[in-house]
């Protein structure tokens, strides 16, 4: 039995006809699947488990297609409901049936077009109020439905009990409590879902709005009460004619925006329904997780949560990843075994007169050699390419796998825990006020948090920000102050042995940069910041299986991405060295690197390859630190510079693409000068106050 798809010619024809003629005033006859299956729509707010419920209700063969004329994807599949076949359609999550997004419009259109379709309104049992707001709108749109209160398992954990029988009587529709996660009551939902009812909630909006509803329904014959309310509130998707004057008139009478008045009335109606069902105050038990979730969003207390999170990250990544795992991999696996084998094999294959430097009885990449010419020179070239001081094996693979990989894996584990716990959106909410002062909003935090994944992609996601002002500011901040995930892991690894003072200095300089530059940029760039709306999921205990899957995927991704670039970076250094240009490059950069920043000349190598890949640059500095070539003060200065440093080459290309070549070059030059200046200033301040870190 083949599921009907939205691309079926018959279906598409019906939808096009409907779209052009009857969308506003009539619910067109429901297009049916080629096999006669009636539709069943799952509608509801985002984050109520609708899609998991869809999975539980349907069979395996799922069709995904674009809603005509949009980029919104619709998932559909068939299932039996009490012996009757239905085509189940998972609609996009919607906060309101007066659409503010393309997804909400698609959901509303699906409801209006498919007259005769069964509708299941899916809600979160822990937040019935929000679901009732949608239920009221469905009733006003004359859409019969069944109410499914999902996530009953979480409600039970919070000791929330809803008398579904009483609620069903109150609102006039069947109510089924389910848990899609635990597979509770799925079969019961299947029996009830095909028995929708029109509902009996009536909301009185006051004489002015009620008169407005009546006038619209006189003009648009057949318009439902819900449609009239939407039109009155400003919804032009129904293409109403001549309502501007009516809207002005009603607003003048009520003294506030119509949409606001409607929302308040609906909210009051939902409250009235719930007050008859809600548990007594004090009976609501706030779990520890709920309490943590609230604290994490608090403007002041949330900062302590951030500090605690950073501290745990510093311990986990810095001590476990960098301290124990890197020590083992770099020393025991690579330096004592793998590199030694590689050197011996290379010596055997590519012979020329040389002796490797022996350190603690182990052959290293460094060696002494006599004059080499002819074929031996070629052998030496190939030998050095693989196992020389800038060899693919002795440097690129050692950096990528022995030094960076364990750090990155521990970082991915930690970040995966943060994601699955539900903390990240709370971080966005908590930082919202601070970002408002920069002319941004919490939503701007999202791409900045993304920068922890990849600044390149994060720059793309500045597209989700609604104003040009925000997009420009965040692009600059991303390139300037937010390290990507692998780099951040290495930074934690370098900070761990330096003590909390070094970490505080690095964090203070980085955050100050973000806030100061962001604040100044917001003053310079014209425009307004947009509103901030974000769904907050409950705080959850992360599942280890999910973490394992995330970490394996990210580690695989990292190896595929990083290793080739580490090899390329090493080749660049090797060729520069072979051409005797590396020394000249270091000499050319010495006034900046040595004179300005107070770092060893070889640190220039790290900054050069840092443009290719930021974590490679950080890895180079880390290797210097482990070899004892960087003092703690120098390590902090180097870390600060590499954090604020010019964006990597991929990020630079994307900035040029998103903001234009001139803006891209201007941003890169500004960042380069700024990062070096801040590094130099930090050195001066540390010397001025005779600060000796790590003592």
């Amino acid at each position, binding site marked *: 039995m083949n599921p009907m798809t939205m691309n079926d010619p018959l279906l598409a024809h019906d939808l096009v006809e409907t779209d052009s003629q009857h969308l506003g005033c009539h619910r067109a006859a429901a297009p049916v699947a080629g096999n006669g299956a009636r539709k069943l729509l799952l509608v509801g707010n985002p984050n109520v488990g609708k899609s998991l419920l869809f999975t539980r209700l349907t069979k395996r063969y799922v069709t995904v297609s674009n809603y005509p004329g949009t980029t919104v994807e619709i998932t559909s599949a068939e299932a039996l409901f009490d012996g009757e076949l239905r085509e189940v359609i998972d609609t996009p999550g919607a906060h309101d049936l007066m659409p503010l997004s393309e997804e909400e419009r698609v959901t509303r259109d699906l409801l209006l077009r498919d007259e005769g379709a069964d509708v299941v309104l899916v809600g979160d049992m822990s937040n019935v109020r929000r679901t009732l707001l949608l239920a009221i709108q469905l009733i006003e749109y004359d859409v019969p439905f069944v109410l499914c209160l999902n996530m009953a398992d979480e409600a039970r954990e919070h000791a929330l009990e809803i008398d579904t029988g009483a609620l069903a009587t109150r609102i006039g529709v069947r109510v089924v409590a389910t848990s899609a996660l635990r597979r509770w009551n799925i079969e019961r939902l299947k029996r009830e879902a095909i028995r929708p009812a029109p509902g009996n909630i009536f909301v009185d909006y006051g004489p002015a709005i009620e008169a407005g509803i009546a006038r619209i329904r006189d003009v648009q014959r057949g318009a439902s009460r819900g449609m009239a309310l939407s039109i009155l509130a400003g919804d032009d998707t129904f293409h109403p004619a001549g309502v501007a004057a009516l809207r002005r008139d009603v607003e003048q009478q009520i003294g506030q925006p119509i949409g606001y008045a409607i929302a308040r009335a609906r909210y009051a109606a939902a409250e009235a329904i719930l007050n008859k069902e809600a548990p007594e105050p004090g009976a609501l038990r706030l779990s520890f997780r709920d309490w943590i979730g609230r604290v994490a969003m608090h403007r002041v207390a949330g900062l302590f949560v951030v500090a605690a999170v950073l501290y745990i990250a510093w311990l986990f990544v810095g001590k476990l990843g960098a301290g124990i795992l890197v020590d083992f991999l770099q020393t025991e696996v690579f330096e004592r075994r793998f590199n030694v084998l590689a050197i011996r094999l290379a010596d055997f294959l590519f012979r020329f007169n040389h002796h490797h430097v022996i350190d603690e009885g182990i052959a290293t990449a460094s060696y002494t050699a006599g004059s080499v010419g002819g074929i031996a020179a070629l052998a030496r070239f190939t030998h050095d390419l693989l196992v020389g001081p800038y060899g693919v094996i002795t440097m690129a693979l050692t950096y990528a796998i022995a030094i960076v990989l364990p750090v990155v894996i521990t970082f991915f584990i930690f970040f995966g825990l943060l994601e699955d716990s539900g903390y990240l959106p709370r971080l966005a909410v908590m930082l919202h006020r601070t970002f408002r002062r920069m002319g941004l909003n919490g939503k701007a935090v999202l791409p900045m*948090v993304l920068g922890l994944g990849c600044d390149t992609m994060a720059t793309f996601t500045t597209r989700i920000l609604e104003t040009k002002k925000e997009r420009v500011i965040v692009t600059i901040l991303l390139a300037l102050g937010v390290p990507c995930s692998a780099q951040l892991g290495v930074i934690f690894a370098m900070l761990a042995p330096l003590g909390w003072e070094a970490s505080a200095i690095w964090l203070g300089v980085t955050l100050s940069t973000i806030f100061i530059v962001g604040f100044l940029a917001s003053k310079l760039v014209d425009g307004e910041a947009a509103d901030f709306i974000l769904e907050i999921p409950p705080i959850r205990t992360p599942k280890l299986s999910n973490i394992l899957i995330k970490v394996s*995927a990210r580690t*695989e991704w990292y190896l595929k991405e990083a290793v080739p670039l580490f090899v390329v970076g090493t080749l660049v250094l090797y060729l520069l060295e072979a051409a005797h240009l590396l020394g000249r490059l270091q000499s050319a950069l010495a006034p900046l690197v040595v004179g300005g920043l107070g770092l060893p000349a070889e640190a220039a190598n790290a900054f050069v390859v840092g443009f290719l890949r930021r974590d490679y640059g950080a890895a180079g500095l880390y290797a210097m630190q482990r070899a004892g070539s960087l003092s703690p003060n120098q390590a902090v200065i180097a870390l600060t510079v590499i954090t604020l440093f010019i964006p990597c080459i991929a990020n630079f*290309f994307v900035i040029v693409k998103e903001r234009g070549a001139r803006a891209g070059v201007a941003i890169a030059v500004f960042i380069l000068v700024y990062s070096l200046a801040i590094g130099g200033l930090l050195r001066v301040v540390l010397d001025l106050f005779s600060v000796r870190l790590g003592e």
Partner: protein
Amino acid sequence: MIDNDRRFDCPLCGIDFTGAACHASCPFARGCAMVRCPACGYEFVEDGWTTRVLLWLHERKKENT
């Protein structure tokens, strides 16, 4: 390459969506395993052959229990 029929759950905003694509403008787009949430723009990696193997093992375990 991302399996565009696979359903993903955004770790940040929680919505689930099907398929994703790395922007072709990125110089490293070919073979990029990054998935981007269409709602909030959050980027994450949850694809790769190791992931598919682990998911397959996980599904088999669930079916057998």
